[in-house]
């Protein structure tokens, strides 16, 4: 019974072929994983090769501090108008998405019943799933005329005749066909689910003992939500904000279709005028160059890669920052 070298079923020792085969499989699988690093390397190589060639022709200082972007006509490669366009869209879409996303997250995690949650969560996911071309189309064709119906309006903030302060009227002019406001609105709607789902995960991760403790002390639900749960989940909420902003910065089609292609610097002090006028973001400029010149060479074509590298660096930094915030300030329970 104990000394049966070869039973009919086969020896317990696995054949050399099988061992080698499985080791090969393991290596193939590891290769798949290493491929992902190759992708990052590929992106960096693809972008920096051309970008460096570009920056050897156009000085980086002129690129990063120039105030006029007109690559073909005036040979100006100043990126500041594009950055200002991106900033305008990002700031105004964040103004929409961040409060709404956080409110939705608080509602879903603290107040909503199960039925409500099972309806609202998928509904919010659909917001993120709609293709961005369709958002751009809706912004161009429906949002702009809709909002234009209420404009122009002006609000006199500081009336004439006040002692020190000069008179100031906040004027919202009528929207042009291409304007930053419609683009910001749809981008804001688009990134709400990013904020709400990540924040909700963070809020749900706060242990119930904290809430119960607060209730035990006599807090209302409002107190618990705003003074206990939200501060505990701050790291996750901030991480979600940063990720959503990074997404808004990288958004392309909606801003290309709705915002037009006129890079310009922002207006002060009548800030609202920026919303009513056309502008151009970094991503829209890349699409414009690709549409015109995508096989060629020369500074304009390579400018596209330089813009891409800038964009990649910005979004990468923000994503790393979000991850770092989430790890560092996460409360340990």
């Amino acid at each position, binding site marked *: 019974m104990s000394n049966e070298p070869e039973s009919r079923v086969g020896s317990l020792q696995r054949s050399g*072929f*099988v061992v080698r*085969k499985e080791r090969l499989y393991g290596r193939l*699988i*590891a290769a*798949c*994983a290493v*491929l*992902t*690093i190759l*992708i*990052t390397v590929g*992106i960096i190589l*693809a*972008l920096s090769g051309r970008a460096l060639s570009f920056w050897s022709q156009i000085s980086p200082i002129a690129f990063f501090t120039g105030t006029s972007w007109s690559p073909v006509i005036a040979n100006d490669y100043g990126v500041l108008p594009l950055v200002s366009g991106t900033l305008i869209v990002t700031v105004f879409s964040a103004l929409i998405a961040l*409060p*709404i996303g956080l*409110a*939705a997250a*608080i*509602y879903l995690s603290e*107040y909503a019943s199960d039925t409500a949650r099972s309806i609202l969560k*998928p509904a919010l996911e*659909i*917001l993120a*799933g709609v*293709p*961005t*071309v*369709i958002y751009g*189309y*809706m912004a*161009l*064709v*429906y949002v702009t005329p809709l909002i234009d119906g209420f404009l122009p309006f002006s609000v006199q903030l500081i009336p004439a005749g006040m002692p020190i302060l000069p008179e100031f009227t906040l004027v919202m002019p009528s929207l042009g066909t291409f304007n930053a406001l419609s683009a910001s*609105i749809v981008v804001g*709607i688009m990134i709400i689910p990013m904020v*709400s789902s990540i924040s909700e995960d963070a809020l749900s991760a706060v242990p119930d003992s904290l809430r119960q403790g607060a209730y035990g002390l006599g807090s*209302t639900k409002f107190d618990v*939500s*705003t003074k206990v749960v939200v501060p505990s989940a701050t790291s996750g909420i901030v991480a979600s904000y940063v990720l959503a902003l*990074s997404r808004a910065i*990288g*958004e*392309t*089609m909606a801003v290309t279709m709705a915002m037009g292609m006129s890079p310009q610097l922002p207006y002060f002090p009548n800030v609202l005028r920026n919303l009513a006028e056309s502008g151009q973001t970094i*991503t829209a400029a*890349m*699409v414009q160059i*690709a*549409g015109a010149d*995508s*096989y060629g060479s020369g500074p304009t074509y390579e400018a596209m*890669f330089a813009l*891409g590298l800038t964009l*990649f660096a910005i*979004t*990468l930094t923000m*994503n790393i920052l979000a*991850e770092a915030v989430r790890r560092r300030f996460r409360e340990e329970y």
Partner: protein
Amino acid sequence: MATDSAPGDELGRSRALRFQQLKGQLFEVGLVAATLVGIVSLLVLFAYISNDAFQPGAASPVWFLTYFGTLVGPTAAFTLYARRRPAVRTANATAFAAVFGGLLLSVVTYAVVDALSPYDVFLYVVFASLPPGLVLAYDRTTDDWAYTGPAIPVSILVGIGLAVLLDGPISGPLGIAAEWIMYFGLTTVPAGLLIGWLTAARRGRRAGGVAGGVVAGGGLAVAVASIAVGVAASLPVVLFSAFVVPTGYVIARSFRTNPEGRVGLAGPFVIIGGTLLGAAVVGQFGIDNPDTFLTPTLLLESWDGLTASNAGVYPQIVGSIIIVGFMAVLAFPVGIGAAVYLEEYAPDTGWGGRLATVLEVNISNLAGVPSVVYGLLGLALFRRTLGFGTGVVVSAAGTLGLLILPIVIVSTQEALRSVPDDLRQGSYGMGASRWQTLREVVLPEAIPGTLTGTILALARAIGETAPLVIIAVATTTYSPPSGLFSSATALSLQVFAAAANAKPEFRHGVVPAAAVVLLVLMLLMNATAIVIRNKYGREN
């Protein structure tokens, strides 16, 4: 003890507390309002775009009444009846999946094969399936999985290689055969084999053989009948094999195994029958239709920049499907491989552990890179380095595949994590190796989660336009792509290109209709993913 009026009363009546309560209620109302703002605005925009796509205003009220009577009424009655009877609901769900899934599958198969040339597809599929078939047959006779396992992918590759080599000489003589024979080989034969195998598993070999023969015979009969009537035989053959046969089989099985639920099987037919009946009534009495552009013309013709009523997006739909299909083939294996490595093989400590951490950080960063940057990567990789043409299917599918790869990896990782460790330990306890455990235990359990994540990623990719613009996919074509290296077409790109056209029948007519088609495609894929998750998924 001071026993005044009960302290609770005072507490309850104090103004501070009531103010607090009011504040709390206002807060909750505010939260609900904020949550709904985004959803409601999107619904409003959807209403605008649907209004332009469907144009319900142009239809007379009688039209609505007709369809209410033939479609909405019976469906509602059926739903109410089915609500209380779970058996009926299961049968209904099965029938639904079979009917609509079958229809979709047959239409998509026909469209894609037609675009890629049935002769070429037939050639490649036959050559790619013969060697594995031989390997499988050999496997039945011996008991040696160790060799036949890896032999199958290798044999498929060998088969494809052979097909490439022999393409020239064989396609000439092959071209003599009628087109429907190609479709027969591509759809009826596998359908027959599948039905035969399923029946044989249940009833024995002879019954299986008979069933397979019935399917094949039915396909031949359909082909002969259509030739006799004078209709092209290809589409009826495909419809028979991919729609009628599976539907028939599933319904017959459900009929047998779920006796109380038999009524549920009629569900999809109520809907289809109601629609057809309504259309017949509307046609007969000449009732005013809505002035919609969502007509068969939109789905079957190619674009016409001058006359909106002639414009269609058929090449773009087929092109999008081909791109998405090829992208899935590229991204799925690599994604699963990477996720399996990170979850199963990677050590936790030491150099391997650090590599794994770096890989994970890298993947989560890649998920956040804007899609334009992927477009630039695709441009540099496929156009410059590899030298493919501009805007071909391979470049488009490759670029978008790279885009969704991080998402596939992350969702597969989560699916693998949700497989309980006990299963793995049990398998190791039985003496299985890591690969065997993966293959037999872990992966089968994780597949639904992976599929869900992948299908959601594909649904997102079908709407991505920016990378396609950067790699210069053409926007005006009249035919779907005819192979891997021909120009790609994509539905999202068509919406982008046509958005500038301000003529009312385009801007508020055809283009919203095309956008609605894109939305429907996306919703279908999302719905499939959710159904898979709900039906086969594992509670996390």
